[in-house]
């Protein structure tokens, strides 16, 4: 069965520091992978996606993610975090039946 694990429930970083949010997936075939961000009380906004090709994917707001098949991972990174990046981040994989499987999310706090 398909699943997504986000091991970190909550992360706190200082503004200007680098960020890495972890995502591990379980899926037998080539996965389609997504990262979404959700600000408080808002819907989900797509940050980036991976379907095939280059394993390093660039997204909006300075985010990037790297697909590593050997580790079944799709970690999200940003070299320098801004206070406005504080939000909930969701990793998702598309599985059989065309359904999105979301992880439980990682809450990011940015301290000045």
């Amino acid at each position: 069965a398909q699943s997504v694990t986000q091991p970190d429930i909550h992360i706190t970083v200082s503004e200007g520091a680098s960020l890495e949010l972890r995502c591990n997936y379980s899926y037998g075939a080539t996965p389609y992978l997504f990262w979404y961000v959700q600000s408080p009380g808002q819907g989900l906004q797509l940050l980036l996606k991976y379907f095939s090709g280059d394993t390093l994917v660039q997204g909006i707001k300075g985010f990037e993610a790297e697909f590593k098949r050997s580790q079944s991972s799709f970690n999200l990174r940003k070299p320098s975090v801004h206070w406005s990046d504080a939000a909930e981040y969701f990793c998702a994989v598309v599985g059989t039946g065309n359904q999105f499987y979301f992880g439980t999310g990682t809450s990011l706090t940015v301290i000045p």
Partner: protein
Amino acid sequence: DAMVIQNPRYQVTQFGKPVTLSCSQTLNHNVMYWYQQKSSQAPKLLFHYYDKDFNNEADTPDNFQSRRPNTSFCFLDIRSPGLGDAAMYLCATSRGLAGLQETQYFGPGTRLLVL
């Protein structure tokens, strides 16, 4: 330029009183989805429409129904809301089904409170 619009943003209803949530899209996408998201949890798919074809998730309670009168609009009807139905309800659209390398675009959500 809003692409997926949800109304209202906040909805308060009484226990057992039917309520309808609305979603509209300007993207002319074929697929529309409804998700339920409870506090600190991942969004959970309730059902989706591919054009006029309705696809219900196996574990979606019968209390939840949906209508799609045209391409642009989709409604979520909760026939008899219980306290456990209080959640954020997210509408999303995609041009095609997710397995075809399609991205889902989400609305801002409607937060439902059941008193």
